[in-house]
């Protein structure tokens, strides 16, 4: 039985939720809308009419294309290294018992709980002490450090949901550990690895704070935008931001569909559509 009070409460709750989601999307609307703004002069703050010219010439602004390229290169390399390192850490944490396992779990978690400004400052201090020249490599080092934990947690979650019987069967049939890992565990783990890769790519390409401290003369996309923010951000930045959003949404849905299919094949009741597969 639903009373009027119940209905009213649901209405208030629903309205509140919709308003909250509108709040979340307000800046996104602005970003997308102003990528089509026919702005005059340097500033892109007021709406002056619709145009496609920025979408046709995304590289018209000096330095922006290079910055985007640097960001993509760093994000790809970060993803590669972090997923490689993190997967093995996750395997050790889930599949084996060993001394120091608890402490390692704690250490993996710490960088995620450290404010980014502290991560950046600490790395900068360390690089200065070591006399390392800051640039592409130091940003890469930093990005791998703070995405590693996300990879471990994502892969660990998938590993724990996995059926160990297939691995045991492989071992019973005489496969050695390396073969089992390569032919059974890793393929079964693939959707988890994809989710972890997506997550580290997204975190790396968006990082501003730690890059700000470790980049030296290297300019990534967020650093370019920050530098431009003082004199007016060109609409091409909105074009790139919108494009990234669309690509990430596409990848997310692809991964989701893939996970579902893999789950059906294995007969594992897989987490109903957690957007990142976490």
């Amino acid at each position: 039985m639903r009373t009027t009070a119940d209905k009213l409460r649901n209405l208030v709750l629903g309205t509140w939720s919709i308003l909250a989601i509108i709040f979340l999307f307000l800046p996104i609307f602005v970003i997308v809308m102003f990528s089509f703004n026919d702005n005059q002069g340097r500033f892109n703050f007021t709406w002056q009419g619709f145009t496609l010219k920025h979408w046709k010439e995304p590289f018209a602004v000096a330095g922006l294309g290079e910055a985007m390229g640097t960001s993509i290169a760093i994000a790809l390399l970060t993803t590669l290294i972090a997923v490689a390192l993190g997967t093995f850490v996750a395997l050790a944490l889930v599949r084996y018992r060993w001394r120091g396992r608890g402490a390692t779990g704690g250490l993996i978690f710490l960088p995620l709980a450290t404010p980014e400004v502290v991560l950046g400052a600490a790395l900068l201090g360390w690089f200065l002490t070591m006399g390392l020249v800051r640039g592409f490599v130091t940003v890469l080092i930093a990005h791998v450090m703070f995405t590693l934990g996300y990879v471990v947690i994502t892969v660990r979650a998938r590993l724990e949901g996995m059926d160990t019987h297939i691995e045991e069967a492989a071992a019973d049939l005489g496969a050695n550990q390396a073969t089992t890992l390569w032919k059974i565990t890793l393929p079964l783990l693939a959707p988890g690895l994809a989710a972890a890769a997506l997550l580290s790519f997204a975190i790396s390409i968006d990082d501003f704070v730690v890059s700000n401290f470790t980049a030296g003369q290297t300019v990534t996309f967020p650093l370019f935008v920050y530098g431009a923010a003082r004199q007016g951000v060109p609409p091409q930045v909105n074009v790139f931001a919108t494009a990234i959003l669309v690509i990430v949404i596409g990848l997310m849905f692809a991964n989701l569909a893939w996970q579902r299919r893999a789950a059906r094949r294995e007969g594992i009741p897989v987490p109903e559509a957690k957007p990142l597969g976490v």
Partner: protein
Amino acid sequence: MSEAVAPAPGKGSRGGGGLSLRRKRALIPLLFVLPGLAWLVLFYVIPIVSQVWVSTQTGNPDDGFVQTWNFAVYPEAVSEYLPQLGRSFLYAGIATLACLIISFPLAYFIAFKAGRWRNLMLLLVILPFFTSLIVRVVAWQTLLADDSFIVDALKAIGILGADGRLLATTFAVIAGITYNFLPFMVLPLYASLERMDRTLLEAASDLYASKLTAFRKVTLPLAAPGIFAGTLLTFIPAIGDYINAQLLGTPNQFMIGNVIQSQYLTVREYPTAAALSFVVMVIVLVLIAIALRFVSTRQLSEAAAS
């Protein structure tokens, strides 16, 4: 860590392994963690600890710094930048509370009322955060600018005076921080509510508890771990935030992150910057240590990665 561990693949399946094989097996997990662990030690643990080394040096940016174990830098730096330090905690605290107030009804709605829209709504909560953070803050500049539709509307209904403004105010900075960390609050809240055993609510109503009593005595206590994890995941990163203060505020709103940033990158007064960042780290570690008395590392880290 208390969760059950699956047996190592192949364990017990091949009889006469012998000592050397067993020893080899014991080595495998160590080989697996070594590269990742080494990376974290080299580029997280050592840098954090080395802040002490950097902070106690004296000198100037032009002639270089030498180690003099000048620990006086700590009280000096803290007292000089006490307003910014205090502001960091104040802003982070208000923003966390605002996040909780906005998120709780939303998470509750998604968990209990959204039905088949649940996954879509979760996706909508996360989606905005796949655009660049900096670009989003710049978009807030546009939204809060003096001639924006929001400011015009607020002036029209009289909330804002004729010469009132939003950009470059404390309100803008706190609102920006609230916006940035909202999903970190929504997701753990949702996770704890979704996991809740709903029959408990039926039991409460069978026992003649009013809706409000049931909420207060059943839902709220069961959501506590989520509230706790969300608070921590919002509050801690918010303390270190400096982008919102930089782009939406003025030096009157600057937080400790702004000081660390400018001392390190602009003024190049490394010891002060290192001292302040080490102080922030110690405060954060204390907060985490307190938090771990209530929830496990695992719950926290999973909430962080969700």
